[in-house]
């Protein structure tokens, strides 16, 4: 079995778990955790492809970018969650549905 495939399979499993968490969880924090899993699966793929294909560092740089982006995104997202909690007294994402059509 090729080493790259191992990484890709692990990345796919991580992605599926993250997506599953995002879809099934009602708790906003848990949803954010799922998103984090998805991002990290993508990171794993970037680094794996970077290691096994050509000799440049694009993949590594991208992974670092994604980590930084994830940190910023979590900061914003947690602020939103906090506001939702302040207004609705819950962090159940199904209750925050004022934008429905």
């Amino acid at each position, binding site marked *: 079995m090729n080493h790259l495939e191992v990484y890709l399979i692990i990345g796919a499993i991580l992605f599926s778990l993250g997506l599953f968490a*995002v*879809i099934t969880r009602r708790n906003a924090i848990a949803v954010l955790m799922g998103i984090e899993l998805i991002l990290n699966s993508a990171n794993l793929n970037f680094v794996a492809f970077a290691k096994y294909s050509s000799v440049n560092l694009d993949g590594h740089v991208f992974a670092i970018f994604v980590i930084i982006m994830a940190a910023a995104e979590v900061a914003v997202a947690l602020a939103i969650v906090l506001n939702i909690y302040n207004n609705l007294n819950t962090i159940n*994402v199904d209750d925050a549905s004022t934008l429905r*059509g």
Partner: protein
Amino acid sequence: MIPYAYLILLLPLLAFVIQMFFGKRLPRQGDFVSVTAVLLTLAFAIAMLAMMFVLYDPHFSIEQKFSWIDIGEFKVTMGVYIDNMTLIMLFVVALVSSLVHIYSIGYMKGDQRYSRYFGYLSLFTFAMNGVVLSANFFSIFIFWELVGVSSYLLIGFWFEKDSASDAGKKAFLVNRIGDVGMLIGIMLAWRAIGTFNFQEIFHAIDNGSLTGSALTVAGIMVFCGAIGKSAQFPLHVWLPDAMEGPTPVSALIHAATMVAAGVYMTARIFPMLSADAQLVIAYFGGFTALFAATIAMTQNDIKRVLAYSTVSQLGYMIMALGVGHFVAAFFHLVTHAWFKALLFLGSGSVIHAMHHAMDKVGDHETDPQDMRNMGGLRKKMPATYITFLVATLAISGIPFTSGFLSKDAILGGSLAYAMNHPQHFLLPVFGFGAAIITAFYMFRQVFMTFFGQPARQDLYEHIHESPQVMTVPLGILATLSVFMFYTLPSLNPFTTEGWFSHLIQQPETVAGEHTATVLEHLTHALHIAHVPSMIISVIFALTGISLAYFFYFTKSWNAEKVAKKISPLYKLSLNKYYIDEIYSKTIIQPFLGACRALAIFDMEMYDKVVIDGFAYTTRAISRIARWFDDVVVDGILVNGVGRIVLMFSAILRLFQTGRLQSYVMMMLFGIIILFAIFMF
């Protein structure tokens, strides 16, 4: 000379602008601005006149032009044309204007619109210089109208009086009739020749571009402008009424310069007047000369006598042009300008004194211009009296005065013309008839005003001579009424031979024909006619004077009894031949009647049927339009769009659940579908 000419033209305009915008805020209400400007133009005019004497060239002329309007075929140039006639005329305008400006400082003192008055005088001076300097029909017409405007403004200067504002309107409208004719004449000339420039037009006429009856009609049409402006019968009615304006204005505009502009313009276009046109002009002038003189005989208003006298004298000039004695016409224009301005300023001095006396006595009923309220003023106003007498002698044609020379030249010309064309014997009859009457009415005026017993002793007590600012101009004008200013270097008072006749000469071609033969014909007849006409005119003048003497000085003949005896004639003359009434009955009243009828038609028919009908129709149409708007536009189109949007949204909103997870699910399915599409 050209820059001088432009300065002469533009300085008064500058003064006018300053007066209009800042006049009231300047010290002395800015009268010095206008006076300085006009004195500067006088200085330039004198300088140019001096150059004329240095050159001493009868054929001197310069022209300067620049393109003004240039649209395809239609080209108009602007510019100035200067010859000896222009130079002399510029001097006349500048000097009379200067004297009137100075005189007005005294006469208009304390008037509530003092600065505006001087502004208007400057405007007039500008426009009049423009007429004199014009090199083409286009610019002469513009300035022609400008003098008309300033005349209108000054006649109606005391517009609080209805009679003054009416007189202003009358002058403007009557002049308009003549000006329309002039405009038609200009267009006829332009159509045939394609230029407005005088010299080019004359040149084209010499080459035969415009001949025969077309030329005659064009000439007469242009002359119509002169009929209006120079107050010739039948458009003379405005000038006597124009006396409502301040007296210095009457002297400047309605005696010396503007009314003479008609004569000047006719002299300017002399080369385009065919023989037939000249004959028409001669009859217009001759008839006016006699006709106006007969009216002047019976008027009692001191200024109206002078007004009709002006009309009559202008008739003389026009007649002189008509009989082809070009030089005499322009000569009389110049001499008349001095002594008629003097007469008006003298009468202004008398009126001024009467006003003051009436103010002192507290009398506001008496007419200060009525000669029947005067009498014996010669002792109280010696300067005015002497200068007035000089002018009266000049206008009556007594030897040693300028008027004698110029009037005699015209009478000689008419007599010479009649000798060559015996069928036109009426022209000298008009001329000599007017001469005798002129002497009569002028001395009647002098006797009634300055001699005899004072009619109103209470007023007489308070009469005194006008200030020097008014009498000095009188003195200057009186000096210029002496013969030798026109005959130098010759000192013979019985012939016009002198610099004037050397420098002003008949145009070489008239209506395409060389005048040499015609002129020789005239000169020959003039030689024969000269002495008889002189003797007759002097005899006639003396007859007129002695008639006035017996009627109004010794009173040995009773004027009233004679008037009663020939009552119909007297009334005819006193009422100015009922010309105003005739115009009123035949033109104005029918016109007003037609206006009234049209007004009724307008109110009853047009307003009620057409206008209101439009309104009703509009309302009916609006109702339909409103229904259409409500039902079709709003109901179907606007709301329809809304409904369609609503319908589709009802479907789309099903997807907008507001649940995060369902969105993610949709994204997932979307990605799977995209994968499926890319895979297969």
